[in-house]
């Protein structure tokens, strides 16, 4: 009995570390495993057998194009976010002297606002008789209201709006840590501002840029809310199609197969853009 107690007390740290690990296993790894197994199983009356039919079924042009569309959108969105976010983060971190706290507040706030509220706020601008159309008509730029809502353009604008802060913040954090004297040193040695940016700031903030890019890429890729609210249900994206499979069509196996197909393509795309970005940033010397 004493021995048992001794062993138990020696396992004290095991006892307190396991809940978190079990929690994550049960609710993350086991579900993923389930999906993975389900995507290869053909369920019959008596038991199940291995099959590739689910993959074959979705391996057609319609599904590929949905994934490609999402990938394209994710890549486009992440790139635009990166290009727009860099100057902003650079300005906030390196040039801004006063009001930094306010700038930081307004940079953090979007993360804390319900994402649906973000999306919803665009209704006022994009609707048929929303503010953009009204303004343009008042100015006489257009005669007929534009169909802004329920379109790919709306989806893209709002995704950009929603995920831009996800790009600015990591960049800001890393640029904030960047020693400003390095920039001074570079200018001092005769470099122009743009030379300094491309040869010093960019290589040194590379990791922040990369993490921001991937974060936005992954988030955009799996986005469900924005296309379903602003896309008018006309085009399918990976997020909407997965939910369609699980909620509407209720075909778990095919849904799982599609999930893994798109995840696979996502990983390939991420790897591809990693190579591309590395070449762009590091290769420029």
């Amino acid at each position, binding site marked *: 009995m004493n021995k048992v107690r001794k062993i138990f007390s020696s396992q004290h740290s095991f006892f307190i570390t396991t809940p978190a690990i079990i929690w994550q296993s049960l609710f993350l790894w086991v579900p993923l495993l389930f999906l993975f197994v389900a995507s290869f199983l053909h369920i019959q009356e008596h038991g199940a057998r291995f099959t590739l039919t689910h993959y074959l079924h979705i391996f057609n042009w319609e599904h590929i194009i949905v994934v490609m569309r999402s990938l394209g959108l994710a890549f486009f969105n992440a790139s635009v976010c990166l290009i727009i976010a860099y100057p902003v983060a650079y300005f906030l971190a390196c040039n801004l002297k006063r009001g930094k706290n306010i700038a930081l507040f307004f940079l953090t706030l979007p993360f804390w606002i319900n994402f649906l509220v973000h999306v919803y706020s665009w209704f006022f601008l994009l609707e048929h008789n929303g503010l953009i159309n009204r303004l343009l008509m008042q100015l006489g730029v257009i005669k007929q209201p534009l169909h802004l809502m329920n379109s790919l353009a709306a989806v893209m604008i709002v995704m950009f709006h929603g995920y831009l802060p996800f790009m600015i913040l990591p960049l800001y954090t890393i640029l904030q840590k960047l020693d400003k004297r*390095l920039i001074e040193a570079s200018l001092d040695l005769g470099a*122009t501002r743009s030379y300094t940016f491309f040869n010093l700031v960019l290589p*040194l903030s590379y990791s922040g840029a990369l993490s921001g890019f991937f974060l936005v890429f992954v988030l955009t890729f799996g986005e469900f809310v924005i296309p379903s609210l602003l896309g008018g249900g006309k085009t399918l994206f990976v997020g909407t199609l997965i939910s369609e499979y699980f909620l509407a069509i209720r075909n778990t196996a095919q849904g799982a197969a599609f999930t893994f197909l798109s995840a696979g393509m996502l990983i390939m795309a991420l790897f591809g853009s990693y190579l591309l970005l590395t070449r762009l940033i590091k290769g420029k010397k």
Partner: protein
Amino acid sequence: MKEISLKNVKKSYHGELILEDFNLTIPAGKFFALLGPSGSGKTTILRLIAGFETVDKGSIYLGNQEITYTPINQRRINTVFQNYALFPHLNVFDNVAYSLNIRRLPKDVIEEKVIKILKTVHLEKHIYKNIQQLSGGQQQRVALARAIVNEPEVLLLDEPLAALDVKLRERMLVELIDLQEQLGTTFVYVTHDQLEALTVADRMAIMNYDGEIEQIASPKEIYEYPATSFVANFVGSTNIFKGSIVAEGATHLIVLKDLGSFIIMEEPNKPFVYNGNTVLLSVRPEKLLITKKKTEGFSNCLEGQVIDIIYHGQSTLYNIRLDNTQIVQVFDQNDQHVPQEIIAYDDRVQLYWQKENAVLLEK
């Protein structure tokens, strides 16, 4: 090799005035040191010259050319930063070659120049190392090499040795002097360490807390003939007495309250030395002779009681309380091997000095 001059410069930060109506000329081809306590604005002056900051008012000249608003990257002035500011993503070679790459020089020219300069700073063995692999002293040399490879008119050094240990610092100081002689470039060396400044400078300027220059002179003049009590206190240490001047025929005396009168040198170049004026008298601790016996050959003498004895190795510091309760410091060279009188706590001692060793200060 051009001189730099600042004319009527005004600069403030966040409403706090740093420099006002500031004038300074840094002679061409000299090793010039700017010495002052932290917060005296000496770094601001450096940053104004380098172009990191712009003046609120006034102008800056490099030779006859005004550079007040010239962008940083178009000034032929380079800086060695306090913490070196080496580019962490580049190796030694690329750090040094940075400015040459900007000028798009041919590859072989760059290589030749970089290797030559790295030899000058004794780094030829570390050309392709990463910055992180170098020691502090080596990093310092890279920063130096990077700044001079482009042959600037002026080299600014902002407390370049602050991060190094004492031994290394001394060696680097000597190397800096050699380098300056070799290149003939104007060096502007900013520091709060008087020893460094005294060691390297051909000329130096002392700044006070208000961003004003107290004195510009050679290191020797600064030390031996400080213009103000601030300079006398800041460069080395000193004993200051307040008193008024009395002329007794050919000799001048200074009358110190409660202590009597003492003979001083007549100093015709100092306009404030006239009968009846109140002045300060500065005597450096090492110029005082401490003894228990009466000694001949000294013009002046004070008496007091020993309250502290601090042994420094090469010298001993005594704190003496005079009869008017003022504390005076005295350095005495140790020479243990020669028989010496023993001075102990509470001993009454005589302090002697030659009248040539005392300096009169107006403020």
